């Protein structure tokens, strides 16, 4: 069992009524897919906001960062870095920059 720290964008924290970061218990391999499954189970109101309900594809303006790396384009079953699985570093779910 791994405890993964997840940091959400402000709008999703508001939606899920979360203060600060989320800690999720993950059984088995810690992957972006497993993290999102656990997140959506605990916070059902977040379903459909990060990835599509049916296809499970990441929404276009959402990014996944970990340990200074952009994991957004990695296959969702790619194991997360050790620093994420040990809880040393958080898994970041980020809304893409916009504005001007």
């Amino acid at each position: 069992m791994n405890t993964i720290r997840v940091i959400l964008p402000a709008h999703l924290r508001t939606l899920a009524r979360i203060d600060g970061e989320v800690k999720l218990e993950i059984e088995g391999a810690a992957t972006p897919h497993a993290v999102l499954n656990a997140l959506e189970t605990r916070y059902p109101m977040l379903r459909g906001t990060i990835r599509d309900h049916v296809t499970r594809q990441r929404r276009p303006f959402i990014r996944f960062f970990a340990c200074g790396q952009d994991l957004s384009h990695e296959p969702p079953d790619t194991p997360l870095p050790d620093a994420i699985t040990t809880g040393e570093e958080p898994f970041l779910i980020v809304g893409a920059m916009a504005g001007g």
Partner: protein
Amino acid sequence: MSGVRVLVGTRKGAFVLTSDGTRKQWDIHGPFFGGWELYHVKGSPADPNRLYASQSSSWFGQIIQRSDDGGKTWKIPGGEKVPEPYDPPGGMSNNFVYDSSPETGKPLTTHQWYDGTQHPWEFKRVWHLEPSFTDPDTVYAGVEDAALFRSTNGGRSWHEVPGLREAKGHLWQPGAGGMCLHTILLDPDKPERIFVAISAAGTFRTDDAGKTWQPVNRGLKSPYELPDPTAEVGHCVHCIAKHPSRPNVLFMQKHWDVMRSDDAGESWHEISGDLPSDFGFPIAVHAHEPETIYVVPIKSDSEHYPPEGKLRVYRSRTGGNQWEALTKGLPQQDCYVNILRDAMAVDSLDPCGIYVGTTGGQVYASADSGESWMPIVRDLPPVLSVEVQALP
């Protein structure tokens, strides 16, 4: 009546404006869902404290919100908690999946794309929510890409109303604002009849509670938008309206032209008459006078502001053709805002109240059928929608 509640959707949140029956002093509540686009907020006629809101974002997609206390508090239907083992699945209130099931005989079809090729339907957002007249838990959603969905459990889950996209859906096409189903007219006395309007497809009617639909666009002419100006579908209808006492009389603000039908959409004729421009977005019918209608002329399809920089609501008391400008209290110089299609509403008090919201963030109200106006709030984000409830 003890009061009035105006529900305002904006580019950056929702606002609830309240007043007593005099409609002179207003309290502003909000923003709710700050930072999100609120395409529409509407109350249930069967339970005024039941409100539905369409919340969306380019980043995070569609959210449905519901209030059971008149807008004081909100929740995502079915998303409040982790479901217990025997609960229905949670987190499905924003799951709008087009019906491709064999049971309804509706394999997923395609619509016309900008380049004339066929393009699959892709859900983008909910433009309009229309609660049932009789059941607070039943609500319809008009969505982009254009389709009609229905929830019978207070917004927890949604199912597409079968049949509508069979009405020549392969010929529907997106306008500049996308391909959206933006108007839903229910009939309080005949629940099996529904009208919807789609940009750019036209107006459609069902007489069997949504099983089958027919385009009802005869008489519309779109010489600058369609290769066949009188095509059965493809017209850019901006809004339709009707009075509850006249189930067969419809009024339409088309891209260009204000139109009227006296036979439930079977035929339409133009009633633009002496308007300074027949381009515009919303249209509304007086609550107590079924031949009194309101439009807000806009200069053109590229100049989305009032002619001459004067914000004028136009009223016809003859069911069209003869129009009078209503200007008292509205800005009459240097005004270059737009009024979007869902941003005009009427209340059922006597005298009838009229409300319009602008892309400049003002909501103007008239408590005397349009004779005089006042801004009830003037610095909101761009207003997308305005609805009003008269409270018992």
